[in-house]
């Protein structure tokens, strides 16, 4: 029963995103908003009825899960990229809260520092420098939105079809984990005991215990990426004439109709 409700919800959600997608003729934002909020409410109601055990944290879970989905929808449908970036910051903050609810504080704060503090600011930097001449056709015309929505939500539906089986898995299955997982000698720290010493300490012991080599490799990966990024972006390239009118050098400011 649950998968079929989910399929219907996903179909409606896909329709909401389709309506909200930027189109040259203008998008039906109000209808999309109503439909989207309805779908999110349905999804959360389903979660509350079927999956979630009653708990005081659940209110925050529903609030931030709903907000995350709504903001994510806005990121992919907003015609102005700067707004996409702002909504993306909202997604990051919501996901960080959801991680805190799962007692992964260190991961949550790392997420905020890395994404909201570094990655997103750089994106915003490039967007601001590039988007000086108002809305362009790049942002007002989506590319095959119907097919994209169909493909994506079929994948999500495939996960949803199996969601009931996850619920059936016992929560404490340390004894039955497959051999491949237990090959790595990890001090299993249950969330209950983890609270005593703190998530940071526990995750530090894992990172610098069994995963030490991976940590070193990620360091090397970051170094290579840094060298690569510098090498790419310092390259002098010829400017191709695209035929589009260019702003005179130094002119900043975009045409916005007065409100």
């Amino acid at each position, binding site marked *: 029963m649950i998968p079929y409700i989910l399929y219907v919800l996903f179909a409606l959600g896909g329709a909401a995103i389709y309506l909200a997608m930027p189109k040259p003729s203008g998008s039906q934002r109000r209808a999309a908003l109503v439909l989207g909020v309805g779908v999110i409410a349905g999804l959360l109601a389903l979660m509350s009825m079927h999956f979630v055990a009653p708990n005081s944290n659940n209110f925050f879970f529903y609030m931030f899960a709903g907000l995350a989905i709504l903001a994510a929808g806005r990121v992919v449908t907003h015609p102005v990229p700067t707004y996409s970036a*702002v909504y993306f910051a909202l997604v990051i903050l919501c996901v960080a809260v959801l991680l805190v609810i799962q007692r992964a504080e260190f991961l949550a704060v790392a997420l905020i520092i890395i994404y909201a503090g570094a990655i997103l*600011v750089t994106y915003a930097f490039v967007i601001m420098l590039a988007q000086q001449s108002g809305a362009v056709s790049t942002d007002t015309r989506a590319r095959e939105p119907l097919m994209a929505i169909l493909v994506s939500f079929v994948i999500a539906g495939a996960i949803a079809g199996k969601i009931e089986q996850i619920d059936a898995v016992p929560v404490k299955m340390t004894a039955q984990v497959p051999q491949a997982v237990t090959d790595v000698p990890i001090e299993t720290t249950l969330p209950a005991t983890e609270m005593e010493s703190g998530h940071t300490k526990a995750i530090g012991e894992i990172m610098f215990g069994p995963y030490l080599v991976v940590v070193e490799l990620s360091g090397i990966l970051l170094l290579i990426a840094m060298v690569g990024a510098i090498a790419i972006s310092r390259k002098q390239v010829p400017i191709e004439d695209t035929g589009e009118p260019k*702003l005179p*050098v130094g002119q900043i400011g975009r045409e916005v109709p007065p409100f």
Partner: protein
Amino acid sequence: MLSWLENQVVFSAVLSLVLITGMMTCVAYCIYFERKISAWIQDRQGPNRVGFLGLFGNFHFWGLGQPIADGAKFFLKEDIIPARVDKPLFILAPAISMIVALIGFVVIPWGGSYMLGETLMNVQVANPDVGLLYILGVGSMGVYGVVLGGWASNNKYSMYGAVRATAQMLSYEIPMGVAILVVVLASGQLRLEEIVLGQVGGNGLWNIVLHPVSFLILLITLFAETNRAPFDLAEAEQELVGGFHTEYSSMKFAMFFLGEYVHMITGSAFICVLFLGGWELSFFGIGPAFPGTGIEDVGLISVIIKIGVLAVKVAFFIFLFMLVRWTLPRFRFDQLMRLAWKGLIPVSLGILLLTVFGLYMGWQRSVLFNLGGEIAIVAATLGVVVLANKPVTGRQDNMPAVTQPLGG
């Protein structure tokens, strides 16, 4: 009588209310003192007219009523939203600036523990496992107010201000993070309360004794993070009118302004907690502890003393902020970048390596080792930078032609 207070959540809520009120008052008077200090430096009088409605005749209380009058002025001025701005973001930007500055203070330990009835309370709004990283994360969100405000204003000067602020924040966050990491390594803690306890007299030295250069780096980056002179290129009046807040007026402008001051207070408290022993007073951790500031003192009077000690330390840093702003000229942008990338980042990375080495050898508490190593690192970096780079100054005649700039 006060039994409903004997719960950390309720206590934290009350404390945060008190702190926000106190902080806003402090900010108002910070602005007053900033004007007084600038007047003192420039041999003027400063604000000295506004007393309290003339109730005391000709005596104006040295202009102490000025902040109240300023506040009223900001509320009553016309709030202009220019026609071609991006309205939602234009309104959102000062709010972000203010909120981000205000939520940073919740993890600052203001006064150790307090025995309330039967329960031991933290005089701290929240003591999360990742307190230090929380401050870093919140601080890194601070740039959004500036960036969005600059972009939404649809004005080239605001835009340049926003671009400058972004580059500056990204560059100075790196040495800041590494300088803080040194403290984390030295104390093995991310909880701010525990970091303070590790510096209390008898337990150990203040971190400034062990890592003076890290302290200086953190202080410098704090100037940059709060957008204060000599790093206030985002709002350089001579070049950019007002920078990112050119188009702002009335209360929205005031919110940017208040955000900057709150950021200054939180940053000062942060640096006191990390390097100067927080609420503890024992002369760099060497001398005997000032009565009432030990770990075991949990009475009301000792909490008040502890808060007072931290407040004095914070006030000292705020004074330093103001002194620097009114005496030092502003950096040029290339100098700013060179300071960060060729000065602060190598030095801070070197100190990080030194601290790790000290930890490995068991020398992390040795003043001689840390001090000697840090001086050597600073000297080496200075030598390399000075020898390898002739500074580019003045107008350049034979600069390579600028190919297309990104935003052109």
